[in-house]
Protein backbone atom coordinates (compact mmCIF):
# COMPACT_ATOMS: atom_id res chain seq x y z
CA UNK A 1 0.00 0.00 0.00
CA UNK A 2 1.55 3.33 -0.98
CA UNK A 3 1.73 5.75 1.96
CA UNK A 4 -0.05 8.26 -0.24
CA UNK A 5 -3.23 6.35 0.48
CA UNK A 6 -2.47 6.48 4.16
CA UNK A 7 -2.36 10.23 4.61
CA UNK A 8 -3.21 13.18 2.39
CA UNK A 9 -2.65 13.16 -1.32
CA UNK A 10 1.13 13.32 -1.37
CA UNK A 11 2.29 11.96 -4.68
CA UNK A 12 4.58 8.96 -4.40
CA UNK A 13 6.60 6.97 -6.91
CA UNK A 14 8.34 3.93 -5.42
CA UNK A 15 12.07 3.18 -5.68
CA UNK A 16 13.54 -0.16 -6.71
CA UNK A 17 14.97 -1.94 -3.64
CA UNK A 18 18.40 -2.24 -5.25
CA UNK A 19 20.41 0.95 -5.44
CA UNK A 20 21.23 1.52 -9.10
CA UNK A 21 24.52 2.50 -10.74
CA UNK A 22 23.64 5.30 -13.17
CA UNK A 23 25.87 7.29 -15.46
CA UNK A 24 26.29 11.06 -15.40
CA UNK A 25 25.14 12.42 -18.75
CA UNK A 26 26.04 16.04 -18.12
CA UNK A 27 27.19 18.64 -15.63
CA UNK A 28 26.21 22.28 -16.04
CA UNK A 29 27.29 25.30 -13.99
CA UNK A 30 24.42 27.50 -12.87
CA UNK A 31 25.92 30.47 -11.05
CA UNK A 32 27.04 29.21 -7.65
CA UNK A 33 25.39 25.85 -8.27
CA UNK A 34 25.94 22.71 -10.33
CA UNK A 35 23.19 20.97 -12.27
CA UNK A 36 23.94 17.27 -12.40
CA UNK A 37 22.17 15.32 -15.17
CA UNK A 38 21.88 11.56 -14.67
CA UNK A 39 20.71 9.14 -17.37
CA UNK A 40 17.82 7.10 -16.00
CA UNK A 41 15.63 6.02 -18.92
CA UNK A 42 14.41 2.83 -17.23
CA UNK A 43 13.85 4.13 -13.68
CA UNK A 44 10.52 5.11 -12.17
CA UNK A 45 9.40 8.67 -12.91
CA UNK A 46 9.85 10.72 -9.73
CA UNK A 47 7.03 12.89 -8.38
CA UNK A 48 7.69 16.56 -7.56
CA UNK A 49 9.21 16.82 -4.08
CA UNK A 50 10.72 13.35 -4.03
CA UNK A 51 14.44 12.86 -3.53
CA UNK A 52 17.20 10.32 -4.08
CA UNK A 53 20.19 9.17 -2.02
CA UNK A 54 23.35 9.71 -4.06
CA UNK A 55 26.95 8.55 -3.74
CA UNK A 56 29.73 8.49 -6.33
CA UNK A 57 31.09 5.05 -7.26
CA UNK A 58 34.69 6.27 -7.14
CA UNK A 59 36.33 8.26 -4.36
CA UNK A 60 33.43 8.33 -1.93
CA UNK A 61 35.25 8.73 1.37
CA UNK A 62 38.95 8.97 2.11
CA UNK A 63 41.06 11.92 3.11
CA UNK A 64 41.91 12.83 6.69
CA UNK A 65 38.26 12.91 7.73
CA UNK A 66 37.39 9.74 5.82
CA UNK A 67 34.09 11.45 4.90
CA UNK A 68 31.70 11.20 3.11
CA UNK A 69 30.79 7.69 4.27
CA UNK A 70 27.01 7.56 3.88
CA UNK A 71 25.08 8.58 0.74
CA UNK A 72 23.56 12.08 0.62
CA UNK A 73 19.98 13.15 -0.07
CA UNK A 74 19.16 15.38 -3.05
CA UNK A 75 15.79 16.52 -4.39
CA UNK A 76 14.99 15.63 -7.95
CA UNK A 77 15.04 19.07 -9.61
CA UNK A 78 13.73 17.92 -12.97
CA UNK A 79 13.00 14.75 -14.89
CA UNK A 80 12.85 14.89 -18.68
CA UNK A 81 14.05 12.91 -21.70
CA UNK A 82 14.97 9.99 -19.45
CA UNK A 83 17.27 12.18 -17.37
CA UNK A 84 17.00 13.14 -13.71
CA UNK A 85 18.44 16.55 -12.83
CA UNK A 86 19.86 17.46 -9.42
CA UNK A 87 20.83 20.95 -8.24
CA UNK A 88 23.95 20.82 -6.07
CA UNK A 89 25.63 23.27 -3.76
CA UNK A 90 29.10 22.55 -2.40
CA UNK A 91 28.64 22.76 1.37
CA UNK A 92 30.77 19.84 2.55
CA UNK A 93 32.67 16.70 1.55
CA UNK A 94 29.72 14.82 0.03
CA UNK A 95 28.27 17.62 -2.05
CA UNK A 96 31.78 18.71 -3.03
CA UNK A 97 32.57 15.26 -4.36
CA UNK A 98 29.31 15.17 -6.32
CA UNK A 99 30.08 18.61 -7.77
CA UNK A 100 33.38 17.18 -9.06
CA UNK A 101 31.62 14.54 -11.18
CA UNK A 102 32.17 14.61 -14.91
CA UNK A 103 30.04 13.20 -17.72
CA UNK A 104 30.51 9.45 -18.00
CA UNK A 105 31.29 8.87 -14.33
CA UNK A 106 29.05 6.55 -12.33
CA UNK A 107 26.71 7.37 -9.49
CA UNK A 108 25.00 5.10 -6.94
CA UNK A 109 21.38 6.16 -6.80
CA UNK A 110 18.57 5.05 -4.50
CA UNK A 111 15.25 6.59 -5.35
CA UNK A 112 12.85 8.18 -5.92
CA UNK A 113 12.15 8.32 -2.19
CA UNK A 114 9.73 10.09 0.13
CA UNK A 115 6.35 11.77 -0.28
CA UNK A 116 6.09 14.59 -2.80
CA UNK A 117 3.89 17.68 -3.09
CA UNK A 118 0.12 17.34 -3.42
CA UNK A 119 -1.58 18.98 -6.39
CA UNK A 120 -3.09 22.44 -5.71
CA UNK A 121 -6.71 22.14 -4.67
CA UNK A 122 -9.10 23.48 -7.29
CA UNK A 123 -9.45 27.27 -7.50
CA UNK A 124 -6.37 28.20 -5.53
CA UNK A 125 -3.35 29.57 -7.36
CA UNK A 126 0.03 28.03 -6.57
CA UNK A 127 2.76 30.19 -5.03
CA UNK A 128 6.22 28.60 -5.16
CA UNK A 129 8.64 29.95 -2.55
CA UNK A 130 12.25 28.81 -2.71
CA UNK A 131 15.45 29.68 -0.89
CA UNK A 132 18.94 28.95 -2.15
CA UNK A 133 19.53 25.40 -3.34
CA UNK A 134 16.06 24.64 -1.94
CA UNK A 135 14.55 25.86 -5.23
CA UNK A 136 15.35 22.43 -6.72
CA UNK A 137 12.06 20.58 -6.08
CA UNK A 138 10.05 23.65 -7.16
CA UNK A 139 11.38 23.33 -10.72
CA UNK A 140 9.97 19.84 -11.27
CA UNK A 141 6.80 20.99 -9.51
CA UNK A 142 6.42 23.92 -11.90
CA UNK A 143 7.01 21.59 -14.87
CA UNK A 144 3.88 19.67 -13.87
CA UNK A 145 1.48 22.50 -13.09
CA UNK A 146 -1.27 23.38 -15.58
CA UNK A 147 -1.57 27.07 -14.66
CA UNK A 148 1.52 29.26 -14.33
CA UNK A 149 2.31 29.63 -10.63
CA UNK A 150 3.68 32.67 -8.85
CA UNK A 151 7.38 31.99 -8.28
CA UNK A 152 9.28 33.79 -5.51
CA UNK A 153 12.93 32.89 -4.95
CA UNK A 154 15.41 34.15 -2.39
CA UNK A 155 19.21 33.92 -2.51
CA UNK A 156 22.20 35.05 -0.50
CA UNK A 157 23.99 36.79 -3.36
CA UNK A 158 24.14 37.38 -7.11
CA UNK A 159 26.06 34.21 -7.98
CA UNK A 160 23.43 32.10 -6.24
CA UNK A 161 20.62 34.17 -7.73
CA UNK A 162 21.65 32.85 -11.15
CA UNK A 163 20.12 29.58 -9.95
CA UNK A 164 16.73 31.20 -10.55
CA UNK A 165 17.13 30.31 -14.23
CA UNK A 166 16.02 26.80 -13.20
CA UNK A 167 12.42 28.09 -13.00
CA UNK A 168 10.30 30.28 -15.28
CA UNK A 169 9.16 33.82 -14.46
CA UNK A 170 10.64 33.96 -10.99
CA UNK A 171 10.70 37.15 -8.91
CA UNK A 172 13.81 37.45 -6.81
CA UNK A 173 14.99 38.63 -3.43
CA UNK A 174 18.66 38.69 -2.35
CA UNK A 175 20.24 39.31 1.03
CA UNK A 176 22.81 41.65 -0.52
CA UNK A 177 20.44 43.34 -2.96
CA UNK A 178 22.49 42.23 -5.96
CA UNK A 179 19.31 41.01 -7.68
CA UNK A 180 15.60 41.82 -7.21
CA UNK A 181 14.22 42.85 -3.85
CA UNK A 182 16.91 43.71 -1.28
CA UNK A 183 15.69 41.55 1.56
CA UNK A 184 13.97 38.27 2.34
CA UNK A 185 11.83 36.25 -0.03
CA UNK A 186 9.23 36.12 2.75
CA UNK A 187 8.75 39.90 2.23
CA UNK A 188 7.62 39.10 -1.32
CA UNK A 189 5.37 36.33 -0.06
CA UNK A 190 3.75 38.62 2.50
CA UNK A 191 2.88 41.11 -0.24
CA UNK A 192 1.48 38.34 -2.47
CA UNK A 193 -0.75 36.96 0.28
CA UNK A 194 -1.83 40.52 1.02
CA UNK A 195 -2.81 40.97 -2.61
CA UNK A 196 -4.64 37.65 -2.99
CA UNK A 197 -4.80 35.06 -0.22
CA UNK A 198 -6.72 32.48 -2.27
CA UNK A 199 -3.60 30.42 -2.80
CA UNK A 200 -1.64 27.36 -1.79
CA UNK A 201 2.05 27.81 -0.98
CA UNK A 202 4.78 25.32 -1.90
CA UNK A 203 8.06 26.07 -0.14
CA UNK A 204 11.54 24.62 0.12
CA UNK A 205 14.69 26.18 1.52
CA UNK A 206 16.66 26.75 4.71
CA UNK A 207 14.80 26.13 7.98
CA UNK A 208 14.73 29.84 8.82
CA UNK A 209 12.91 30.64 5.58
CA UNK A 210 10.52 27.71 5.97
CA UNK A 211 9.63 28.86 9.47
CA UNK A 212 8.95 32.35 8.09
CA UNK A 213 6.69 30.89 5.37
CA UNK A 214 4.91 28.67 7.88
CA UNK A 215 4.20 31.59 10.26
CA UNK A 216 2.96 33.85 7.42
CA UNK A 217 0.64 31.21 5.99
CA UNK A 218 -0.64 30.26 9.43
CA UNK A 219 -1.51 33.86 10.31
CA UNK A 220 -3.30 34.35 6.97
CA UNK A 221 -4.66 30.76 7.08
CA UNK A 222 -3.27 29.87 3.67
CA UNK A 223 -2.48 26.16 3.18
CA UNK A 224 1.24 25.48 2.75
CA UNK A 225 3.32 22.46 1.87
CA UNK A 226 6.88 22.54 3.12
CA UNK A 227 9.68 20.38 1.71
CA UNK A 228 11.97 19.83 4.70
CA UNK A 229 15.58 18.81 5.06
CA UNK A 230 17.22 16.75 7.79
CA UNK A 231 20.47 14.90 8.16
CA UNK A 232 19.81 11.42 6.78
CA UNK A 233 21.64 8.12 7.01
CA UNK A 234 19.37 5.85 4.99
CA UNK A 235 16.52 7.70 3.25
CA UNK A 236 14.03 4.81 3.52
CA UNK A 237 12.86 4.82 7.13
CA UNK A 238 15.43 2.43 8.58
CA UNK A 239 17.50 4.56 10.94
CA UNK A 240 14.99 6.98 12.53
CA UNK A 241 17.71 9.64 12.31
CA UNK A 242 15.94 12.27 10.20
CA UNK A 243 13.08 13.21 12.51
CA UNK A 244 11.42 16.58 13.04
CA UNK A 245 8.87 17.32 15.75
CA UNK A 246 5.20 17.46 14.74
CA UNK A 247 2.66 19.78 16.37
CA UNK A 248 1.36 16.89 18.53
CA UNK A 249 4.89 16.47 19.90
CA UNK A 250 5.59 13.23 18.07
CA UNK A 251 8.59 12.96 15.80
CA UNK A 252 8.11 12.11 12.13
CA UNK A 253 10.74 10.77 9.75
CA UNK A 254 11.42 13.32 7.02
CA UNK A 255 12.48 10.58 4.60
CA UNK A 256 9.27 8.53 4.69
CA UNK A 257 6.64 10.83 6.23
CA UNK A 258 8.11 13.72 4.20
CA UNK A 259 10.12 15.44 2.89
CA UNK A 260 6.93 17.34 2.01
CA UNK A 261 4.82 18.02 5.08
CA UNK A 262 1.62 20.03 5.48
CA UNK A 263 2.60 23.18 7.38
CA UNK A 264 -0.43 22.61 9.62
CA UNK A 265 1.26 19.47 10.97
CA UNK A 266 4.14 21.55 12.34
CA UNK A 267 4.22 23.79 15.36
CA UNK A 268 7.39 25.36 14.02
CA UNK A 269 10.23 24.37 11.67
CA UNK A 270 13.12 23.21 13.80
CA UNK A 271 16.42 24.71 12.67
CA UNK A 272 17.92 21.24 12.62
CA UNK A 273 15.46 20.26 9.93
CA UNK A 274 17.67 22.28 7.58
CA UNK A 275 20.96 20.51 7.34
CA UNK A 276 22.28 23.06 4.86
CA UNK A 277 21.69 26.06 7.14
Amino acid sequence: MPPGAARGENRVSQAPFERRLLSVSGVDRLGAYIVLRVADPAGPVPEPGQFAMLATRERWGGGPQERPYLPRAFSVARHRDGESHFLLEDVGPGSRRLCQLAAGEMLWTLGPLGRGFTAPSHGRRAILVGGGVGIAPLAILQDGLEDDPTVLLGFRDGARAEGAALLDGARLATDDGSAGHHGLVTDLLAAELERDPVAVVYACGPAGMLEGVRALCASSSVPAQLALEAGMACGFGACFGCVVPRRDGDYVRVCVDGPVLDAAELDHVDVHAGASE
Partner: protein
Amino acid sequence: MSVSFCGLELAHPIINGSGTFDAIAANRAFAGDLRSDFPFAAYVSKTITLTPRRGNPPPRLWEAAAGLINSIGLPNKGLEGYLAEDLPELVGISTSPRPGGGRRLVPVITNVMGSTALEFSKLVEACEGREEIAALELNVSCPNVKTGLDIGADPSQLELLVRAVRGLTRKPLIVKLTPNTADVAACAEGAQEGGADAVSLINTLRAMALTPPAPSGAADRRAWLGGRTGGLSGPAIRVIALAQVAAVAERVTIPVLGMGGVQSGAHAKELIDVGATLVAVGTESFREPAAGARIASELEALTTS
Protein backbone atom coordinates in the same frame (compact mmCIF):
# COMPACT_ATOMS: atom_id res chain seq x y z
CA MET B 1 24.08 -22.09 3.38
CA SER B 2 20.96 -22.76 5.45
CA VAL B 3 21.76 -22.69 9.14
CA SER B 4 19.96 -23.48 12.37
CA PHE B 5 20.19 -21.15 15.34
CA CYS B 6 18.51 -21.92 18.65
CA GLY B 7 16.12 -24.21 16.79
CA LEU B 8 15.29 -21.67 14.08
CA GLU B 9 15.96 -22.95 10.55
CA LEU B 10 17.28 -20.02 8.51
CA ALA B 11 17.91 -19.65 4.77
CA HIS B 12 21.40 -18.22 5.42
CA PRO B 13 23.42 -16.76 8.33
CA ILE B 14 22.78 -13.06 7.62
CA ILE B 15 20.15 -11.14 9.60
CA ASN B 16 19.62 -7.46 10.43
CA GLY B 17 20.88 -5.66 13.50
CA SER B 18 18.07 -4.41 15.73
CA GLY B 19 17.00 -0.86 14.89
CA THR B 20 18.75 -0.74 11.54
CA PHE B 21 16.00 -1.97 9.21
CA ASP B 22 12.28 -1.17 9.40
CA ALA B 23 10.59 -3.89 7.35
CA ILE B 24 7.24 -2.08 7.35
CA ALA B 25 8.62 1.29 6.24
CA ALA B 26 10.90 -0.37 3.66
CA ASN B 27 8.02 -2.38 2.22
CA ARG B 28 6.19 0.90 1.65
CA ALA B 29 9.15 2.85 0.32
CA PHE B 30 10.19 0.33 -2.28
CA ALA B 31 8.50 -1.03 -5.38
CA GLY B 32 7.92 -4.75 -5.74
CA ASP B 33 7.05 -7.06 -2.88
CA LEU B 34 9.80 -6.95 -0.26
CA ARG B 35 7.73 -9.32 1.87
CA SER B 36 8.47 -12.21 -0.46
CA ASP B 37 12.00 -11.07 -1.35
CA PHE B 38 13.46 -10.20 2.04
CA PRO B 39 17.23 -9.59 2.29
CA PHE B 40 17.62 -11.10 5.77
CA ALA B 41 17.12 -14.70 6.94
CA ALA B 42 15.46 -13.51 10.15
CA TYR B 43 13.97 -10.14 11.08
CA VAL B 44 14.98 -8.48 14.33
CA SER B 45 12.64 -5.73 15.49
CA LYS B 46 13.91 -2.46 16.84
CA THR B 47 14.01 -2.33 20.62
CA ILE B 48 10.52 -2.38 22.16
CA THR B 49 9.89 -0.90 25.61
CA LEU B 50 6.95 -1.29 27.98
CA THR B 51 5.60 2.21 27.30
CA PRO B 52 5.86 4.25 24.10
CA ARG B 53 9.02 6.37 23.61
CA ARG B 54 9.45 9.37 21.32
CA GLY B 55 13.20 8.98 21.25
CA ASN B 56 15.84 11.71 21.49
CA PRO B 57 15.50 15.21 20.04
CA PRO B 58 17.35 15.81 16.75
CA PRO B 59 20.01 15.91 15.55
CA ARG B 60 20.33 12.16 15.97
CA LEU B 61 23.10 11.40 13.50
CA TRP B 62 26.77 12.23 13.08
CA GLU B 63 29.04 10.83 10.42
CA ALA B 64 32.42 9.92 11.89
CA ALA B 65 35.60 8.53 10.30
CA ALA B 66 34.45 5.28 8.67
CA GLY B 67 31.44 5.21 10.95
CA LEU B 68 28.16 6.65 12.15
CA ILE B 69 27.21 7.93 15.60
CA ASN B 70 23.52 7.73 16.42
CA SER B 71 21.51 8.95 19.36
CA ILE B 72 18.12 7.73 18.22
CA GLY B 73 16.96 7.00 21.76
CA LEU B 74 14.91 3.88 21.05
CA PRO B 75 11.71 5.47 19.75
CA ASN B 76 8.93 2.86 19.63
CA LYS B 77 5.18 2.42 20.00
CA GLY B 78 5.55 0.57 23.25
CA LEU B 79 4.73 -3.07 23.87
CA GLU B 80 0.97 -2.82 23.21
CA GLY B 81 1.33 -0.81 20.03
CA TYR B 82 3.98 -3.17 18.72
CA LEU B 83 1.99 -6.31 19.43
CA ALA B 84 -1.25 -4.84 18.09
CA GLU B 85 -0.08 -2.87 15.02
CA ASP B 86 3.40 -3.98 13.93
CA LEU B 87 3.68 -7.67 14.73
CA PRO B 88 0.77 -8.72 12.48
CA GLU B 89 2.48 -6.94 9.56
CA LEU B 90 5.70 -8.85 10.23
CA VAL B 91 4.41 -12.38 9.79
CA GLY B 92 4.50 -14.25 6.49
CA ILE B 93 7.64 -12.50 5.26
CA SER B 94 9.96 -14.77 3.27
CA THR B 95 13.39 -14.65 1.64
CA SER B 96 13.73 -14.70 -2.13
CA PRO B 97 13.94 -18.25 -3.54
CA ARG B 98 17.53 -19.54 -3.29
CA PRO B 99 19.51 -21.99 -5.42
CA GLY B 100 19.16 -24.52 -2.60
CA GLY B 101 15.39 -24.54 -2.21
CA GLY B 102 12.36 -22.28 -2.49
CA ARG B 103 11.41 -19.33 -0.30
CA ARG B 104 12.21 -19.65 3.38
CA LEU B 105 10.01 -18.05 6.01
CA VAL B 106 11.68 -15.17 7.88
CA PRO B 107 11.13 -15.64 11.63
CA VAL B 108 10.57 -12.57 13.80
CA ILE B 109 13.00 -11.93 16.64
CA THR B 110 11.62 -9.29 19.00
CA ASN B 111 14.17 -7.11 20.76
CA VAL B 112 13.01 -5.76 24.15
CA MET B 113 14.46 -3.50 26.80
CA GLY B 114 13.40 -2.63 30.32
CA SER B 115 15.06 -0.48 32.94
CA THR B 116 14.34 -3.01 35.69
CA ALA B 117 14.03 -6.80 35.94
CA LEU B 118 10.30 -6.31 36.50
CA GLU B 119 9.94 -4.37 33.24
CA PHE B 120 11.91 -7.06 31.39
CA SER B 121 9.63 -9.70 32.92
CA LYS B 122 6.46 -7.96 31.74
CA LEU B 123 7.89 -7.60 28.24
CA VAL B 124 8.97 -11.24 28.05
CA GLU B 125 5.68 -12.53 29.44
CA ALA B 126 3.66 -10.56 26.91
CA CYS B 127 5.81 -11.79 24.02
CA GLU B 128 5.61 -15.40 25.23
CA GLY B 129 1.89 -15.24 24.50
CA ARG B 130 2.43 -14.44 20.80
CA GLU B 131 3.39 -17.32 18.54
CA GLU B 132 4.31 -14.88 15.72
CA ILE B 133 7.44 -14.18 17.76
CA ALA B 134 10.07 -16.86 17.12
CA ALA B 135 12.69 -15.63 19.58
CA LEU B 136 13.49 -12.79 21.98
CA GLU B 137 16.55 -10.57 22.13
CA LEU B 138 17.15 -8.72 25.40
CA ASN B 139 18.82 -5.34 24.94
CA VAL B 140 20.71 -4.87 28.21
CA SER B 141 22.53 -1.71 27.12
CA CYS B 142 20.18 0.59 28.97
CA PRO B 143 21.66 2.60 31.85
CA ASN B 144 21.06 1.31 35.35
CA VAL B 145 19.01 3.97 37.18
CA LYS B 146 21.31 3.90 40.22
CA THR B 147 24.84 3.47 38.78
CA GLY B 148 24.22 5.03 35.37
CA LEU B 149 26.15 2.11 33.88
CA ASP B 150 24.62 -0.25 31.35
CA ILE B 151 22.70 -3.01 33.16
CA GLY B 152 24.57 -5.52 31.06
CA ALA B 153 28.00 -4.20 32.04
CA ASP B 154 28.14 -6.19 35.27
CA PRO B 155 28.33 -10.00 34.83
CA SER B 156 26.62 -10.99 38.08
CA GLN B 157 23.85 -8.39 37.70
CA LEU B 158 23.30 -9.62 34.16
CA GLU B 159 23.08 -13.24 35.32
CA LEU B 160 20.37 -12.31 37.84
CA LEU B 161 18.42 -10.38 35.22
CA VAL B 162 18.47 -13.25 32.71
CA ARG B 163 17.54 -15.78 35.41
CA ALA B 164 14.60 -13.58 36.39
CA VAL B 165 13.08 -13.76 32.88
CA ARG B 166 14.31 -17.19 31.81
CA GLY B 167 11.44 -18.96 33.53
CA LEU B 168 8.85 -16.80 31.79
CA THR B 169 9.38 -18.01 28.25
CA ARG B 170 10.01 -21.14 26.23
CA LYS B 171 11.18 -19.07 23.28
CA PRO B 172 14.90 -18.84 22.50
CA LEU B 173 16.39 -16.06 24.62
CA ILE B 174 19.20 -14.04 23.02
CA VAL B 175 21.04 -11.57 25.24
CA LYS B 176 22.49 -8.60 23.37
CA LEU B 177 25.59 -7.68 25.33
CA THR B 178 26.93 -4.17 25.78
CA PRO B 179 30.45 -3.56 24.42
CA ASN B 180 31.00 -0.74 26.93
CA THR B 181 32.43 -3.03 29.59
CA ALA B 182 35.79 -4.19 30.92
CA ASP B 183 35.16 -7.88 30.27
CA VAL B 184 32.53 -8.75 27.68
CA ALA B 185 33.38 -12.47 27.91
CA ALA B 186 32.52 -12.51 31.62
CA CYS B 187 29.21 -10.80 30.81
CA ALA B 188 28.51 -13.47 28.19
CA GLU B 189 29.25 -16.12 30.80
CA GLY B 190 26.86 -14.43 33.17
CA ALA B 191 24.14 -14.47 30.52
CA GLN B 192 24.79 -18.17 29.87
CA GLU B 193 24.67 -18.98 33.58
CA GLY B 194 21.38 -17.10 33.80
CA GLY B 195 19.94 -19.36 31.11
CA ALA B 196 20.40 -17.46 27.85
CA ASP B 197 20.17 -19.58 24.67
CA ALA B 198 22.52 -17.28 22.77
CA VAL B 199 24.35 -13.97 23.03
CA SER B 200 24.62 -11.23 20.41
CA LEU B 201 27.28 -8.51 20.08
CA ILE B 202 28.48 -5.87 19.56
CA ASN B 203 26.12 -3.02 20.21
CA THR B 204 27.36 0.50 19.45
CA LEU B 205 30.30 2.03 21.32
CA ARG B 206 29.73 5.21 23.32
CA ALA B 207 30.95 8.19 21.29
CA MET B 208 30.45 11.94 20.99
CA ALA B 209 30.56 14.76 18.46
CA LEU B 210 30.61 18.55 18.85
CA THR B 211 28.65 21.02 16.76
CA PRO B 212 30.85 22.00 13.80
CA PRO B 213 32.18 25.57 13.80
CA ALA B 214 29.55 27.81 12.16
CA PRO B 215 30.44 29.21 8.71
CA SER B 216 30.79 32.51 10.55
CA GLY B 217 33.82 30.99 12.22
CA ALA B 218 32.44 31.39 15.71
CA ALA B 219 32.62 27.83 16.98
CA ASP B 220 29.68 26.62 19.01
CA ARG B 221 30.97 23.90 21.30
CA ARG B 222 27.71 22.32 22.30
CA ALA B 223 27.36 18.58 21.85
CA TRP B 224 25.95 18.00 18.37
CA LEU B 225 23.64 15.12 19.20
CA GLY B 226 20.30 15.74 20.89
CA GLY B 227 21.13 12.86 23.21
CA ARG B 228 24.53 14.49 23.92
CA THR B 229 26.43 11.20 23.43
CA GLY B 230 25.56 8.43 21.00
CA GLY B 231 26.72 5.04 19.76
CA LEU B 232 29.37 4.44 17.11
CA SER B 233 28.71 1.83 14.42
CA GLY B 234 30.07 0.96 11.01
CA PRO B 235 33.49 0.00 9.59
CA ALA B 236 35.38 1.82 12.35
CA ILE B 237 34.22 -0.69 14.98
CA ARG B 238 34.63 -3.91 12.98
CA VAL B 239 38.02 -4.93 14.40
CA ILE B 240 36.78 -4.21 17.94
CA ALA B 241 33.74 -6.41 17.25
CA LEU B 242 36.01 -9.16 15.94
CA ALA B 243 38.03 -9.12 19.19
CA GLN B 244 34.92 -9.14 21.40
CA VAL B 245 33.16 -11.89 19.43
CA ALA B 246 36.32 -14.03 19.54
CA ALA B 247 36.68 -13.50 23.29
CA VAL B 248 33.02 -14.38 23.92
CA ALA B 249 32.97 -17.42 21.62
CA GLU B 250 35.97 -18.86 23.46
CA ARG B 251 34.26 -18.48 26.79
CA VAL B 252 30.67 -19.67 26.22
CA THR B 253 29.11 -22.83 24.78
CA ILE B 254 25.87 -21.20 23.56
CA PRO B 255 25.75 -19.86 19.98
CA VAL B 256 26.95 -16.35 19.24
CA LEU B 257 25.32 -13.77 16.94
CA GLY B 258 28.13 -11.49 15.78
CA MET B 259 27.87 -7.99 14.34
CA GLY B 260 29.75 -4.73 13.99
CA GLY B 261 30.91 -2.99 10.83
CA VAL B 262 30.17 -5.87 8.47
CA GLN B 263 30.17 -4.66 4.85
CA SER B 264 30.92 -7.82 2.88
CA GLY B 265 30.80 -11.59 2.84
CA ALA B 266 34.50 -11.59 3.75
CA HIS B 267 33.74 -9.56 6.87
CA ALA B 268 30.88 -11.91 7.80
CA LYS B 269 33.17 -14.91 7.30
CA GLU B 270 35.73 -13.46 9.70
CA LEU B 271 33.12 -13.27 12.46
CA ILE B 272 32.04 -16.84 11.70
CA ASP B 273 35.68 -17.96 11.68
CA VAL B 274 36.16 -16.66 15.24
CA GLY B 275 33.03 -18.44 16.45
CA ALA B 276 29.83 -16.67 15.41
CA THR B 277 26.91 -18.79 14.12
CA LEU B 278 24.94 -15.87 12.68
CA VAL B 279 26.05 -12.43 11.53
CA ALA B 280 23.95 -9.28 11.69
CA VAL B 281 24.29 -6.32 9.31
CA GLY B 282 23.36 -2.86 10.52
CA THR B 283 24.80 0.40 9.23
CA GLU B 284 25.76 -1.07 5.86
CA SER B 285 22.04 -1.39 5.06
CA PHE B 286 21.85 2.41 5.20
CA ARG B 287 24.36 2.63 2.35
CA GLU B 288 22.65 -0.16 0.45
CA PRO B 289 19.20 -1.42 1.47
CA ALA B 290 19.82 -4.79 -0.22
CA ALA B 291 23.20 -5.24 1.53
CA GLY B 292 21.93 -8.23 3.53
CA ALA B 293 21.17 -10.26 0.40
CA ARG B 294 24.45 -9.24 -1.26
CA ILE B 295 26.49 -10.20 1.81
CA ALA B 296 24.67 -13.54 2.09
CA SER B 297 25.58 -14.48 -1.48
CA GLU B 298 29.16 -13.21 -1.11
CA LEU B 299 29.44 -15.37 1.99
CA GLU B 300 27.98 -18.35 0.15
CA ALA B 301 30.54 -17.89 -2.66
CA LEU B 302 33.39 -17.74 -0.13
CA THR B 303 32.34 -20.80 1.84
CA THR B 304 31.47 -23.04 -1.10
CA SER B 305 34.67 -22.17 -2.99
